[in-house]
């Protein structure tokens, strides 16, 4: 197309900065005279089929925002004073190099943490820098219990030896029209309202596409949402009790013999032990725990079990349960015993597309990139490895709750510096946010790489480096499907991509670095796919794995496509789906799923509950924002202008608060401002509010820090994590609070 002469159109793949998300869709960038003038969905991209979310449609306002960081900065005033001075990239790299080398010489590489936020493309470059520097402490600092996807990944890995996702036909470019594909007859949407975002590599509206094609929905959600109001069954669950519900559903399906006997016999291990365990969770007991009527639990379990194919799509509340990994395990058992693994319209095994590693999701991928020796060596000093065998055995993260405690205490070894890359820890993910702030102020050296100033950069940064959006960089993505590349179409100021910054730094810190530039790295990593970066750009930026490849469904366990030895079966010790998990057994975690009450709540802390009678749910998504981002984008902010709290009409009356009133949400940890929205969306005993709020229009310097201490909800979320494996149990959905009037 071209309304105008001189407009060039570049199809590209999205991931992170810009739209902010977990990416994967194809968008067309319209560029004129080196300037991005428009974004449109790419109709050739099967992921989104021409569609776009509001955040990517607002990209021009993001890219050219007057507040974008466009040069490296050096702090010149005191920390928090907000005084920074532009410096050259050379000077910035020199300072970082000097500082990081001297810290490594004196205290060892482990005394520097490399911190990121959610599953964004920064995971590749930051782990690359961290490993090349020699630090074991790559960490989602602030994210209590790593409670975002990692517990689900862990639960799946321990059960199936692999990960799985709901099949919406995304592995075939023909999508719903592929004759091999079948739409799930029933979809359990567990703890998510999918439309607002594309979490975990899954385009939220795929569920809507399936509904149009006949899928019935079982929605498990404490709130009324768009999805729940269209569901066959809405199970309005008490937050933090998903584990009990999953066990109760297993109880129904096993005792009523609704499971797939052939699959269970042939492909699973430990069924009898599971059968015994679920007897501890009869439906009446589960109903009491979850607040869901018995009849609904039974009917939902039956509906899911007797329909084939049926799929489960799940969200971050699973991770935020106490023992999130165990809850994920129980849910994986639901799709396992009903034979819904790796069949069209079920839960299909998901591997990085074409076997390409961008962001290492498993220990195996880390070993593939950096070698067994380095991984073993780093595991010795990685924070949390000694305490939690699962932290040591699964993925490569330092345990975040222990990391902040160690930054604070200096024990067992001191942490001297933080490299924080596109993560607004203080304004975003940090539970106990004020404690994070106090502890991190003790750090000797803090580098923040970001696109905008935010509470974290203002409060802590010594050096600020300006990062690029996906439109401004060469990068690649292989999170399930498609295999996609981003390619640089515009330049903003002196911004550099995370890969550029980290490859340059890595070369300065490790003379034996493997790659000199970004293209070299990408082409090397793409080589297993038999394609180059330029070829992918040429093809329109995306490719699907072909049939018969181990990253393409279906029924790979039957065909011997999963295991290294080429034998049929799964990549577990027994070669079967382990309903009784050998991996959990080896990590000292209960090999069978179990339920534990949330740390705070009516059952565990009745006295606290009397004082703070509302269960606060945070962390849902707005269509307008990605976590703590986008508050400065005019087209987005006007559609979700203030931090609201949803309050049921009866609850509003009880607390004497009215619609539109500014109030405090309060508990023993402090209080946070919110504007009341009286709404039937929430249960009378619960409230719901969005996380990630700060106001870019407020003053950035201390003490304001863009209003973070007025609005940051996570300052009243306690820590550490509520789980025995080290994974799961961030208390973002189960913390108690009350509403209080603001006294002028």
């Amino acid at each position, binding site marked *: *197309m071209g*309304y105008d002469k001189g407009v060039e159109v570049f199809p590209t793949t999205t991931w992170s900065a810009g739209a902010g998300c977990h990416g994967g869709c194809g968008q067309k960038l319209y560029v004129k005279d080196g300037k991005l003038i*428009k*974004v*449109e*969905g790419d109709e050739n991209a099967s992921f989104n089929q*021409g*569609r*776009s*979310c*509001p955040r990517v*449609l*607002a990209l*021009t306002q993001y890219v050219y925002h007057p507040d974008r960081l466009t040069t490296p900065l050096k702090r010149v005033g005191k920390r928090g004073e907000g005084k920074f001075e532009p410096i050259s990239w050379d000077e910035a790299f020199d300072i970082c190099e000097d500082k990081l080398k001297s810290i490594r010489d004196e205290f060892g590489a482990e005394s520097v943490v490399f911190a990121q936020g959610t599953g964004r493309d920064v995971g590749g470059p930051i782990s690359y820098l961290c490993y090349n520097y020699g630090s074991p402490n790559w960490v989602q600092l602030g994210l209590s219990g790593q409670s975002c996807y990692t517990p689900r990944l862990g639960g799946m890995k321990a059960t199936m030896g692999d990960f799985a996702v709901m099949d919406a036909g995304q592995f075939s470019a023909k999508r719903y029209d592929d004759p091999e594909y079948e739409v799930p007859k029933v979809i359990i949407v567990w703890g998510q309202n999918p*439309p*607002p975002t594309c979490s975990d590599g899954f385009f*939220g*509206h795929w569920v*809507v*596409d399936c*509904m*149009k094609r006949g899928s019935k929905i079982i929605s498990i959600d404490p709130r*009324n*949402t*768009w999805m*729940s*109001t*269209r*569901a066959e069954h*809405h199970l309005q669950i008490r937050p933090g009790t998903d584990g009990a519900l999953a066990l109760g559903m297993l109880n129904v399906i096993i005792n009523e013999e609704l499971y797939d006997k052939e699959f269970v016999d042939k492909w699973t291990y430990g069924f009898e032990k599971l059968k015994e365990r679920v007897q501890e969770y009869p439906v009446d007991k589960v109903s009491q725990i979850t607040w869901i009527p018995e009849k609904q639990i039974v009917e939902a379990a039956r509906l899911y079990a007797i329909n084939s194919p049926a799929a489960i799509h799940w969200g971050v509340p699973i991770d935020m349960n106490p023992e999130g990994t165990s809850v994920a395990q129980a849910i994986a058992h639901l799709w396992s015993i009903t034979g819904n693994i790796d069949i069209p319209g079920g839960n299909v095994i998901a591997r990085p597309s074409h076997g390409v590693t961008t962001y290492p999701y498993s220990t195996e991928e880390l070993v593939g990139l950096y070698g067994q020796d380095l991984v073993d060596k780093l595991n010795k000093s990685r924070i949390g490895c000694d305490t939690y065998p699962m932290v040591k055995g699964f993925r490569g993260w330092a345990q975040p709750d222990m990391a902040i405690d160690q930054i604070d205490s200096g024990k067992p070894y001191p942490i001297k510096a933080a490299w924080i890359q596109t993560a607004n820890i203080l304004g975003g993910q940090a539970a106990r946010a004020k404690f994070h702030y106090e502890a991190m102020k003790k750090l000797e050296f803090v580098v923040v790489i970001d696109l905008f100033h935010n509470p974290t950069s203002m409060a802590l940064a010594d050096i600020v480096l300006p990062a690029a959006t996906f439109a401004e960089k060469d990068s690649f993505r292989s999170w399930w499907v498609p295999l996609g590349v981003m390619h640089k179409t515009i330049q903003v100021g002196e911004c550099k991509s995370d890969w550029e910054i980290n490859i340059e730094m890595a070369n300065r810190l490790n003379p034996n670095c493997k790659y000199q530039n970004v293209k070299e790295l990408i082409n090397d990593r793409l080589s297993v796919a038999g394609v180059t970066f330029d070829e992918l750009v040429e093809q329109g930026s995306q490719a699907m794995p072909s049939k018969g490849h181990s990253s393409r469904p279906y029924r790979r366990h039957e065909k011997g496509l999963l295991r290294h030895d080429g034998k049929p079966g799964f990549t577990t010790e027994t070669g079967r789906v382990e309903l009784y998990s050998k991996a959990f057994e080896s990590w000292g975690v209960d090999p069978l799923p179990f339920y534990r009450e949330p740390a705070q709540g009516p059952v565990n802390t009745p006295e606290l509950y009397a004082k703070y009678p509302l269960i606060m749910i945070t962390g849902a998504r707005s*269509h*307008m924002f990605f976590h703590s981002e986008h508050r400065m984008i*005019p*087209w*987005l*902010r*006007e*559609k979700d202008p203030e931090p609201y709290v949803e309050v049921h009409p009866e609850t509003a009356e009880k607390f004497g608060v009215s619609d539109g009133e500014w109030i405090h949400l309060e508990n023993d940890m402090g209080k946070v401002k919110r504007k009341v929205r009286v*709404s*039937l*969306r929430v249960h009378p005993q619960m409230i719901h509010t969005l996380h990630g709020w700060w106001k870019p229009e407020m003053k950035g310097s201390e003490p304001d820090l863009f209003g973070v201490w007025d609005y940051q909800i996570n300052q009243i979320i306690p820590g550490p994590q509520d789980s025995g494996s080290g994974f799961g149990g961030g208390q973002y959905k189960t913390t108690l609070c009350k509403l209080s009037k603001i006294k002028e």
Partner: protein
Amino acid sequence: MSKYGLLINYDYCTGCQSCAVACQQEHGFPAGKCGIKVTEYVYAAVRKPVAIDFLPFPTELCDLCINRHQQGEEPACVKHCQAACMAFGSLAELVEQMEVTPRSVLFSPR
């Protein structure tokens, strides 16, 4: 253009606001100006105790993307609608379509 319109199957509208931002981008409207506004309705109901619906309403500023139409393209909102619940066409065609899509609304903005 008077015989063209927008058909919105609001049973599937998720309130995602892609239509609104697509419209603002296409027309270069600043925040505060838009060819379509999305409103949320939360009310006690029948299918479930609580219903949640969204309804996009084309404002006076909607020109049915006449420029795009002349280039043979769909309106920006229709193209980007994440729920694919919007259609553009002649009113006659859309009325026919409406017969098979309950909970729809037809707008004739111009």
